[in-house]
């Protein structure tokens, strides 16, 4: 979308900014590459999935996670920017939590990485605080009318993560096998973890 007469292609703007900042010694190639690699490879929803799988298999951990999300998540080594104070919301057969940031795109980086496109999109941000049941249906999650929906707008530095329901038929799964089932979307609350 070329939106305004003086619109500069964002890829070109980035290239120009990087060039000027590098020239002034304010950024360097190695730092940039390292940063990108971190968020491409080590900080992402696979971290949150480990938290969820641990909570599903260890009742003591689950209790600690719901009581003090920040500390319990740090037990597994996950902390850092955009995770200063973590609150974990437990989905149940009767209560369904879903998370948004209407003002920008706040998201719990240490456990989920960077937000996906749909989370940052105006359609999600505008609508999920007004018609969440309809939005969830569009995503493919048709909740029964008896399920209470709780929408959480991340407007402060508190970051929210959903502890989804453990799918049926996974009683014999190991913690690692369970972690493989957990999806980013389920930890934001726009999907359930699929029954394998």
């Amino acid at each position: 979308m070329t939106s305004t007469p003086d619109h500069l292609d964002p890829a070109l703007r980035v290239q120009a900014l990087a060039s000027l900042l590098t020239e002034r010694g304010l950024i360097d190639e190695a730092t940039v590459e390292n940063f990108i690699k971190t968020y491409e490879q080590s900080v992402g929803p696979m971290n949150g999935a480990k938290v969820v799988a641990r909570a599903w298999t260890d009742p003591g951990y689950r209790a600690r996670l719901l009581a003090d999300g920040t500390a319990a998540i740090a037990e597994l080594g996950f902390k850092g920017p955009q995770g200063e104070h973590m609150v974990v919301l437990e989905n149940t057969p009767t209560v369904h939590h879903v998370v948004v940031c209407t003002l920008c795109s706040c998201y719990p980086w240490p456990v989920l990485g960077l937000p996906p496109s749909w989370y940052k999109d105006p359609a999600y941000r505008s609508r999920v605080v007004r018609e969440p049941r309809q939005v969830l249906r569009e995503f493919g999650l048709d909740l029964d009318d008896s399920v209470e929906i709780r929408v959480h707008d991340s407007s402060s530095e508190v970051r929210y993560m959903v502890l989804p329901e453990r799918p049926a038929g996974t009683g014999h799964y190991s913690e690692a096998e369970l972690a493989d089932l957990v999806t980013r979307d389920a930890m934001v609350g726009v999907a359930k973890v699929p029954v394998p």
Partner: protein
Amino acid sequence: MDGIHDLGGMQGFGHVQPLTAAPPFAEPWEGKAFVIGALAARIAGTNLHAFRHAIERVPPPEYLAGYWNRWTIGAQTMMEDSGILTDEEVRARAARLSGRDVPEPPPPTPHKPQMASGGAGNLRSLDTPPAFAVGDRVRVADLDPSGHTRLPRYVRRRAGTVTALRPGQVFPDTAAHFAGENPQHCYTVDFDSRELWGPGAEPFRLFIDLFEPYLEPGP
């Protein structure tokens, strides 16, 4: 400010995007954009709140032209504000990178803002007791500041119930303008959807974190 960023409850944006397992950066320039934005506050001598406010000030057509577009323009705006570079420089460099031989303007003189920091991050402990307790009814004040705020339009003047006291935090409304950390108590407030959207609303509960200056005792 009542900007395009304050999207909660706006209508007309159509269907949500499909859920995909796409990687964080669809193209290499997006990764570079991310890093420039992530480092911009440090480079400009500012803070996270100023960065959010810079993105809020991106003109609506540019804001809606994609996430990494607004992110990058916000980062650039903040660096312009601190005299790190100018828009003319960026455009001249972009033209030269595109093979056009244009003159490059001189760099500006840096003038980073001065604001004392109370420490890393944004959580702060407060000496003053919180004004509200869990279970209290509150009403959101009819505030309409032209600067940065974390009070979205859609909860203004609405009444809800405090469900949690969160850690004290740097107050975004002043920190974004380098007018002090001014830490505040922060509460999660629970609103009935019908209080927000009228009697015909979908039934649900909306929880949002609100700083103490945004709240008054409620009905």
